[in-house]
Structures are given as C-alpha cells and as structure tokens.
C-alpha cells in the first residue's frame, strides 16, 4: 500500500478506487474473522493455513484479515467470495478444513455444508456493495435467526473490511462524512443535525450528544479536547472492543468530525490496556490516517488541524466515569470529582472537554451522510437509532447484536438468542453490567430503551446483556456484582467505599445460609443509602443488582434465610451436590452410590430408605430432576441415579435378611413422644409424612378413602410401570416404623376435620388431586368420552372399559401417556393430540418414546375443536385445529395459535388428560383458606394452613405434580410439625451416620450411561407386565462408579 496524501476530491476518489479493487478483486477472496474472539477460537492458525496453502499451491487468491461479524457462537468465521457471486460466511472453520475449502474455491464452488449465510449485497450506510447472486442452498444473512431483525449501523463494516487498511474503509464510503462536513464548513449546521437526530450517549447515561456538543462549541478556551471513552469494563460486555478491532477508522472519523464542529484540535482515545489487539489496530489506523492526510495539520487539505493520541488505561473500572477518566489522563489516581463543573466547562487540565463513548462516535458519520431524518426512522421516538448489545450467558446463540432501540427483550432472548440451553427455563436477564439490574422473565415484553429500563430499576449501560436460567442463583448474582463493584470502588466517598463492603458482607452471609430477616432489612436500607448518597455513577448504580434482585426475586432471598436452600444449587454451603439439591426429597444420592460402590448393599438400602420411604416406586416413575442437574452430563451423560436406587431396593427385597434390615431402620426411631398425628390421604405425600412422623417418635395414623395405601401409585399408575406387588413390598418400609393405616374411610364425611382436631395433636392433609380438569369442547357429553384418572383407576382395579378400536387421547402429560399406553394394551389404536411441540410436553420423555414405540401416534400442534357423535350417542370422530407457534408467552414457550386447517380423526373413544385439580368440594368443606387457583393456602416454608394444628402438602397445595415432589412435601411437613409440637429442632437426630470414602474420582474417563432394558415394544404392548427390566448388578455398580462425587469437599482429600 503506497500512501498518498489526500488533498482534494480526486485524491479521495483514487484511494477509494484502490480500496474497492481490494474488496472486490477479479479473483477469489478469502477473509478470516480475526477479532480477539475469532483468534481465541483458532482463527490465527486458520489464517496461516490459508496463507501457506495459497502460496504452496500457487492459487493467487486474495487473503485478508477482517474483524468480527458478531456471531460468537459460530467462531471462527471465514468469508469467501468468488467474483460475481455472493459473499459466503463459513462457520467454525478449523485449519484442517482449509484444503477442502481451497479445493472448492479453485473449482468455482463454495463449501455449502459449513456456510452460515450468504450476503448478496450489503448496506454500509455510507456506501452500498453488491457482491453478486447465486447459491440458492445457503440462507441469506438476514434469514438466519441470530441476524434477523438486526440493523447494522454501528457495526456497518465489522467483519467485512480489513481493519488494517484505510483504503478498504474509504472504499465503503469511509471519511465521506468528514469530507462533507469540511466542505460545508458549517459546524453549527452539523451540530444541529446531531441534535435533530436525537443521538444519545451510548455509554449508558443516554445524554443528548448534540446538546453536549453545543455546550462545548460555545465554550471559549485556547485548547479544547475531544475524548473517546473506550475503557469498557463491564463483565460480559465487549462490544467496544469488537468495534475497534473490526473498524477503527469509523471511530477516528467520528472524532475528527467532532473535533472540527466543536473547535477542538486535540483528541484522545482512552482505551483499556487489556485490549492489546484494539490498541494495535488503533495505532495502525492513526498512522495510516496521518499518512493519508486525514489527521494532522491540514486535514484533507481543508486547513483544519487535528491530532489524535492514544492512551492506555490501566484497567480500573471507575476510570469509565468521565471525571475519573480525566484525572487518570492527567496522571493522577482515577478518582471521580463532583460535577459541576462539567467537563464541557472544565475538563482535562481545566480545558473544555467532550467525552463520548466509542459507539456514540460510530454513529456520527452515518448521521451526517444520511441525515437526521434517516436516523430517526430506526429505534423509538425518544431513543432513535440502534444499540449494540453483547448477548451472553444462558442462550443458545451468543454474540454481538445490533438492534433498534425499543426492541422488546424477548426478541433478544428467544428470537436472536434462540432461547435457553438444553431446554432450561430462562429466569432473568441482567442488563447494564454491574451498574444494571436483573429483569425477570415475566417482564420480557419490556422495550429496551433508556427510560423504560430505568423505570424498572435497571439501565442500558454499555449494552451488556447476561441471560440467566434456573441454574443461576439470583442472590449469588447480586453477590457477584457487589463483589465486583466493591473491589472497583475508588474509595473516595464513604457510602461506596464502606457501604459496598458491608453489603458484600451481608450477601456472603446469604450465600452461606447464615443471614436473618434483619440482615435482609439492613441490606435493603444500606443499598438505598449507597444509591442515594454516593459521589459518582459507580456508587450510585452499584446497588442496582441488589435492589432489583430483591424486588423481583425476593423469594430466593427468603429461601436462603428460612429454608437455607439455594434452589439453583449455586451456593455451595447450602447444598450437598446438584443432585441432592434438586431432589425434592433431598436424598443423599452420592452416599448411596458410594455405599453400593463399596459393595455395602444393606447400608446402601438403609441410606436410600431413610431418605425416601418409597424407593422402589420412585426408582421406577420419578421425574428424576437429579439427572437434569448432574454434572456428569457435561462430561458425557448424567448418572442414572433413579435406576440405581431401584436396583438397590429390588435387591434388598430379595435379601434373606430383609426383615432384619427393616428392624435396623425402625431402630432409628426416637423415643415415643406421646403425640398423635393424623395424616389424611394414603398417597405418596401422606405415606412420606407418616413415615417421618413415626421416626420422630410420634404416633402416626393414615386415613384414606381407599381400602389400600398408595394413592395414585396404586390407583392411577398402570401396572406395567409399577407392579402392585412391588408397591406392597415397599410399603413394609413405611409400616416397619409403626405407621397405622385406616381405610376405607371418608374424610370429611365419616370423619370430620373437627373430629381429627379433637383427637390429634396435629393433622396433615394430603388428599391430592383426584378431580379431572374438564375442557369446554362440543361433544364431551358423548358416551365414549372419559377423563383419564377414572379410566386409569378403573383399569387398575381390574375393569376392562369398552374403548372400541380407535382411541384419541388429548393432553401431553404423564396421565395422557399412561392412558395411551393402557389403551394400547387394551387392544386399541391410539392417537395422542397435543397442542404444543414435543419439547414442551410435560411427560417424562422416555415414557413418550415408549408409547410411540408401542405404536401410539402423536399429533403435535393440534388442538381439539369438537367431538363428532354418532347416532347412538357415542363418538364417531374428533376434529382438531392445527396450530402454529406464535409469540413467546410468560412460560418462555411459544404460544400455539390456531390456524384455519381442520383435521378429522375417526375414533370410538376420547380420553381427556388435560390436568387434574383439587376437589373443590373438599377445599370448601375444609374451611381452610384457599388460593385464587383453588389450592389450599399454606406457609411455603412450614406448610401450616390457615387453621392451627393443620398442615397440608402435595398436590393439594401445588396442583397436580409428581410423586417425588409430593413426597418432598410430606417429608417437610413432618419436620415442621415436629418442630412445632416439640418446640425444638430434632430432625437431624433420626438420620444415622455412615462412614464411607470421601475422595473424588481422580478422573472421569468417558463411559456411557446404563439404561434399563426395555421389553420389545410388540411384546410388552400385549400385556400389563412390567415394561422394563432394571439394571443388572454389574450395570448398577458401573453406574455408581460414574458419579463424580460433587459432595466431596476440599479438605477431605
């Protein structure tokens, strides 16, 4: 590149033509995305592989380095271009891919299988580049979900031109804005344009740039400074780094224009020293601009003098605050000073100074070239234009996204980001870095602009957007950000220096489970004080993460205080391991796995049974939340914990000493207390509660409407999932500790709540949800329409209902799948109709797959429309409306929207499995407080109802749930009833202590998870015999060995 000084339009155009010839050469061109992000993912070696191969094979292709196109999740990105064809962006290119790519290009092809997108033409705002047409098989860039809806103004050149070549910048209309402004020679008019565009400071505060510039222009002084604040320091934010690395000249252009219109001859870029690549490229850009006469004593030959200097900041976060930044430039410690005086009056060394963020400068040239009216077309009326966000955290597609201001949060998270990873539920998004706040998922309709974010307690900040899901503890998130600001506080003012330190003290107390309600109040009061009284923006905004998490996630703070639980499993001191933490029964899972591993089956069984009195049932039908959290899944697959405790239990049943084992269990009982507890409902909730009440030394009696105990386990779960003889065998565990069962007896009815009140010291209500929800649907009165629960109960009791040959099941939960598989076994052909997608089904995925293997058809995205009757009053067919996926709803799933398409499915029976509810007659008759949803209202920590002495748990307080959740409530109720009855905490005393190995496995070599053996579908669908065979002894042992022992703590080594 021979520099030629530009002094007139001809010179300008010559340089421009030279650049265009490089961008669109008459031969194939390869450009490797080499921002820090790309290089970190191996782009350096990709570049060198291309370079060597092109030279080695004498291909004569053009090769260059470009910045980043923004799609971080797909790095390294490589652009390939064949003359006359679209530019194609290749994703995840490795050095080993290079020979094949070159083969393709040499043959006039592009490797479509690794293509992310193609660009036929590109709007550089200041210019328009036409690459060409073709490649019907590759999506256009704006069809890729990640880019859809993005509007690239700031990032107009990023990833497309070489940051190291000023001519390429000139080729895409660079320095045209500067040229125009200098030619016009009317700085006031230029400032008017910035004002009319309503450009607002992109550093976060959102102050009107034009007004700031006007103030500066009016200031009279012998020296004036324009400064670019490139001291980007928010955790998770890297948009400025990428902008500079990809397109440094756009920053220079903005600053030179700013200098000219404000009357400043000196510019300073204050950039973090931790951004070496950005520093390097800026230095190069400044040198080139000098060589081309764009910086210096005679800018573009128009007689304007402007010099630009680069200063590297040492990385103190507070230096992002403008007065601290100025102090730092003056060579003093970076501590803010009070405003006024504002920098526009007295800034660097006392001279008028304007400081703008990197992104603000990037918007200057486009506004001046295209005009303010063009600019205000994008974005919202009060906040026009776009903003670049770094979308990071728990979304599938991370990266830099430039969106119009005012775009709702959900567009960022679900459309651009593609929603949660591994199907996890997204909980919140944190905007604005450590000065910002957390916005909960139910507020994702919020448009992202300065005012709206401020109203809900957050800020736009520099544009960081950290997405959090159910694995993030919001208390820990608040603690993390306060730890950051506490260590970055400059220490000048007392509230920020000492206040944040004390706030961190309280937050640490929360994460250790040691905090009290008083600490919560002190933290709240302290946060407000720090916010209201601190000297600078750092202290004033530092409490935002605490205040917003307290506002939107108070229940998590309360969990940490009252239940000493961290639901997300982040706060280590509050959880043994992720599996234990997510288990509603809080089973010590690593312990039984280890005991089995040590070949101590009896101990393993006792460990399981003392934690979970129905281990054989839960071993078969639990929803296994433990496995969703298992850390082994990050290595290969989660440990099959559920099936191991099924194995342990099934083996223990067969031991000759089983009765002796139960005696050992009964020996854990505390001495009799003389207290009597009634448990209403003999399902899993009631059984668990009674078991623990008995262990605590109380007399526990279960009342149930059925003749036998088990509830839904016995009367709703089909035999092929849970054989009744297994249930009977395991109930001995509950009986062994002295629980009494009385049934059938109706409560209330044969026995009133008042009777129980009179006869017992405490009463636990756990009658579950036996009422099937009904849907309004024409035709439900027909004789072949039946609700799922009575159907399953009938079959469980030995009835054979006449279903006919074709059955339709409506619903997507476990009851729907159970009904379908039961109907199959009764000889019917079965179709399941579900209104959402497969991934939205609440049923256990393995069950759904098993049903399909057995021949059930599933029709997704279909909602029942009406049931068509036959002349006999029976069912003839069902009509369903096809649905399509609409907007995201509050649950983070896309709402099904009906279409015009109606399908007809011929059938003889319809089974409705759309959910179960609490029997409202019972709820009303109980005289207890009811929630708006018709559930019994309880204190969520102690399970006390509105009536003294009465506790409630299970489905009665949650609505239909699952067996382990239900049992968890029973277990918890026992603990709190005991505490209330005895006036002290005795819970821990019933659990024996086992000595076992406390070392973590040295390494985890990859090993597949063992699963149960399924009986062949054709065979099992004929019979109600159990459909799976449990793990073998070897499999169970190997599975136990796969545990990574997250429960082992440092110090045990």
């Amino acid at each position, binding site marked *: 590149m021979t520099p030629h000084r530009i002094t007139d339009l001809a010179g300008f155009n010559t340089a421009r033509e030279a650049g265009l010839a490089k961008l669109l050469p008459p031969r194939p061109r390869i450009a490797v995305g080499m921002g820090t992000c790309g290089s970190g993912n191996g782009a350096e070696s990709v570049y060198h592989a291309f370079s060597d191969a092109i030279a080695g094979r004498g291909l004569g292709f053009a090769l260059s380095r470009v910045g980043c196109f923004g799609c971080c999740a797909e790095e390294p990105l490589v652009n390939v271009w064949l003359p006359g064809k679209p530019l194609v962006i290749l994703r995840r290119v490795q050095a080993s891919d290079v020979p094949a790519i070159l083969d393709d290009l040499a043959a006039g092809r592009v490797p479509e299988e690794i293509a992310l997108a193609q660009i036929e033409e590109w709007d550089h705002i200041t210019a328009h580049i036409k690459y060409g047409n073709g490649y019907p098989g590759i999506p256009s860039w704006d069809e890729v979900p990640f880019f859809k809806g993005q509007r690239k103004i700031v990032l107009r050149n990023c990833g497309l031109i070489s940051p190291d070549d000023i001519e390429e910048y000139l080729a895409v209309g660079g320095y045209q804005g500067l040229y125009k402004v200098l030619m016009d020679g009317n700085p006031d008019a230029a400032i008017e344009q910035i004002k009319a565009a309503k450009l607002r400071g992109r550093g976060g505060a959102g102050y009107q740039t034009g007004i700031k510039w006007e103030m500066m222009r009016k200031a009279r002084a012998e020296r004036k400074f324009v400064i670019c604040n490139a001291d980007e320091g928010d955790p998770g934010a890297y948009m400025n780094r990428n902008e500079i690395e990809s397109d440094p000249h756009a920053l220079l252009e903005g600053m030179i224009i700013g200098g000219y219109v404000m009357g400043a001859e000196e510019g300073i870029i204050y950039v973090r020293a931790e951004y070496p690549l950005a520093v390097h490229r800026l230095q190069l850009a400044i040198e080139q601009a000098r060589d081309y006469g764009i910086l210096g004593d005679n800018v573009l030959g128009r007689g304007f003098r402007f010099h630009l200097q680069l200063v590297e900041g040492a990385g103190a976060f507070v230096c992002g605050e403008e007065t601290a930044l100025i102090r730092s430039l003056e060579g003093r410690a970076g501590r803010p*000073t*009070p405003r006024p005086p504002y920098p526009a009056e007295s800034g660097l060394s006392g001279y008028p100074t304007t400081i703008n963020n990197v992104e603000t400068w990037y918007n200057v040239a486009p506004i001046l070239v295209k005009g303010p009216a063009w600019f205000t077309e994008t974005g919202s009326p009060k906040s026009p234009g776009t903003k670049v966000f770094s979308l990071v955290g728990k979304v599938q597609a991370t990266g830099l996204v430039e969106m119009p201001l005012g775009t709702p949060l959900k567009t960022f998270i679900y459309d651009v980001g593609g929603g949660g990873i591994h199907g996890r539920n997204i909980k919140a998004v944190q905007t604005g870095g450590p000065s910002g706040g957390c916005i909960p998922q139910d507020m994702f309709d919020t448009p992202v602009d300065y005012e709206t974010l401020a109203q809900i307690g957050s800020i736009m900040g520099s544009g960081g957007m950290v997405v959090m899901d159910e694995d993030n503890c919001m208390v820990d998130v608040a603690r993390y950000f306060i730890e950051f600001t506490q260590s970055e*506080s400059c*220490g*000048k*003012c007392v509230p920020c220096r*000492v206040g944040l330190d004390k706030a961190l003290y309280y937050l640490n107390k929360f994460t250790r489970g040691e905090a009290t309600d008083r600490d919560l109040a002190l933290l709240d009061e302290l946060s407000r*004080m720090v916010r209201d009284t601190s000297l600078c923006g750092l202290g004033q905004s530092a409490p935002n993460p605490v205040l917003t998490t307290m506002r939107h996630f108070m229940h998590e703070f309360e969990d940490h205080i009252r239940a000493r639980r961290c639901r997300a499993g982040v706060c280590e001191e509050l959880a043994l391991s992720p599996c234990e933490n997510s288990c509603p029964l809080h089973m010590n899972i690593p312990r039984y796995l280890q005991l089995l591993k040590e070949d101590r089956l009896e101990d393993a069984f006792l460990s399981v049974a003392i934690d979970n009195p129905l281990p054989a049932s839960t071993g078969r039908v639990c929803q296994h939340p433990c496995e969703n959290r298992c850390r082994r899944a990050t290595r290969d697959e989660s440990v099959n914990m559920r099936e191991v405790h099924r194995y342990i239990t099934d083996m223990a049943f067969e031991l000759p000493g089983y009765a002796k084992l139960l005696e050992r269990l009964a020996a854990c009982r505390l001495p009799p207390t003389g207290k009597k507890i009634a448990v209403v409902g003999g399902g899993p909730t009631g059984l668990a509660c009674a078991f623990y009440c008995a262990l605590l030394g109380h007399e526990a009696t279960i009342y149930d409407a059925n003749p036998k105990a088990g509830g839904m386990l016995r009367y709703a779960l089909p035999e092929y999932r849970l054989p009744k003889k297994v249930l009977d065998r395991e109930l001995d565990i509950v009986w062994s500790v002295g629980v009494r069962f009385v049934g059938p007896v109706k409560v209330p009815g044969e026995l009133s709540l008042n009777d129980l009140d009179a006869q017992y010291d405490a009463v636990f209500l756990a009658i579950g949800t036996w009422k099937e929800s009904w849907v309004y649907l024409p035709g439900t009165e027909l004789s072949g329409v039946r609700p799922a629960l009575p159907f399953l109960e009938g079959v469980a009791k030995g009835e054979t209902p006449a279903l006919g040959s074709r059955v339709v099941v409506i619903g997507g939960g476990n009851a729907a799948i159970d009904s379908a598989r039961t109907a199959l076994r009764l000889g019917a052909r079965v179709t399941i109709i579900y209104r959402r997608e497969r991934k939205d089904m609440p049923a256990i995925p393995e069950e759904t797959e098993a049903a399909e293997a057995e021949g059930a058809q599933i029709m997704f995205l279909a909602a029942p429309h009406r049931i068509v009757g036959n002349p006999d009053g029976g069912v003839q067919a069902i009509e369903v409306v096809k649905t399509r996926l609409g907007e995201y709803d509050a649950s983070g799933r896309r709402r099904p929207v009906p279409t015009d398409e109606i399908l007809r499915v011929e059938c003889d029976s319809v089974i409705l499995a759309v959910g179960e509810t609490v029997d409202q007659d019972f709820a009303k008759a109980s005289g207890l407080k009811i929630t708006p949803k018709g559930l019994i209202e309880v204190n969520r920590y102690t399970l006390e109802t509105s009536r003294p002495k009465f506790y409630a748990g299970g489905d009665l307080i949650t609505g239909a749930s699952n067996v382990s959740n239900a049992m968890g409530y029973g277990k918890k109720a026992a603990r709190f009833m005991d505490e209330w009855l005895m006036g002290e905490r005795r819970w821990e005393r019933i659990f024996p202590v086992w000595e076992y190995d406390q070392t973590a496995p040295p390494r985890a070599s990859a090993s597949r998870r063992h699963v149960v053996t399924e009986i062949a579908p054709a065979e099992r669908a004929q019979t109600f015999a159990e459909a799976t065979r449990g793990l073998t002894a070897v499999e169970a042992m190997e599975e136990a060995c796969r545990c990574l022992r997250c429960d082992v703590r440092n110090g045990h080594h």
Partner: protein
Amino acid sequence: MPNRVSIRLDGEYIRATRGQTILEAARANGKFIPSLCAMKGLHPVGACRLCVVEVAGVGRLLPACTTAVQDGMSVTTASEKLRHYRRMILELLFAERNHVCAVCVSNGHCELQALAKRLGVTSVRYPYAFPRLEADLTHPRYVLDHNRCILCTRCVRVCSDVEGAYVWDIGARGVQSRLVCELNVPWGQSENCTSCGKCVQACPTGALAEKGFAAEEMTKRLEPIARLASSRGGRI
C-alpha cells in the same frame, strides 16, 4: 449580575454570595449542616457525603459542600431521610476501622465523635471490620495512626493547597485505601515534609496527632489554617 442571592434553608430565607456553596452559606448564617471532609480554607471534595441535602426540584441528593447556591434555591438540610442516611454514614465510618475512643488522644475533642453524639448515634448496626492497621511513629514529632483515619483527605489538601509540600496522598482503592506519605514511605523518611503540623491540626480525629499526648489530651486548631488560606486567596 447581582453578587448577593437569597436562598431558603429549611424554610428560612438567608442571604448568600454568588459562588458560595450551600455549606458555606449555611455556616455564614449560623446554620448547622454536618460534614467531616469539608474544612474552611480547603477546596471541597464531596467525599464524606454527610452534608447531602435535598434541593427542591432536584431528584437526587446534593452535597452542600460542592453545590453552589442559586438565587431562590430551596434547601432542606435535615429531613428524616437525611438524618437516617447520615447516621448510617457515621456508623459505617466507625465500623470501618478501629476507633477505640477510650484510649484515643483526641477523645473528647474529636469531630467524628462529636457528630456521632449530635446525630444521635448510640450503636453501630454494621459488623465491625476490625482491620489490622499500623501506626506510623517514624516522624520525630507526629504520629499517623491508620486505625483512626477516616480518609477525609483534609491533611492531603492542607499539605498541597496551603503548605504546598504535597506530602500526603491516598494510595490503593476501595476499603483498602490508605493515607500514604509521598510514594508510600514512612513519614520519618519524607523529603518534602516541613514538619509544619498543619495536617495534624486539620485532622478531624486522632489519626494525626502530636507525640507526647495521652488519651483525651490532644486538641486541634483549625482557625489559623483558614486564616492562612484566605490570606493566600484560598476559599473562605
């Protein structure tokens, strides 16, 4: 422009001079606004935040020591919220370091202690940090005891603005901030210190004291510094 303005302070009209801060105007009129870092004769820094006041029409609290008066301004100096916040700030100062008043040379003559009494502090709601801090005894005449320093920077400013010796500065940051002598050398090794003692007199607590005094014996005199500063054209 008239040089005199009038402002309302807690409902009462007072006269002030253009260019004065709210704090200066209040003091000139015998009105009390608590502060620790502000000192007559030194440029204000707005660090202790005790002097924050409410100004009608302004959404946030403003420090009286750095906010200039404006004609017609209406200022509230002691709302319930302000009193509450000020007590919290004082308590934070007490909790930050080891102010064991009973054995302090300035006990009974300490501005921090006097403000605590005046603002009604009877205990500290925050946990005491009890940091391990040194006392610098290397200077022949004076002592620097970090245990009692509240980082108000009066010593820093009196040394630079009035004495012109630039001995003191603040090192490190956040709760780790410490008063440092020159480039963090023991005071006794200072090359610039003139041993004038202005920093000792300016110190509101017992952090800087003269040697040879026992508990409760050290009193400070601020008036001469203010006179000296004004004679050199400093702020009044």
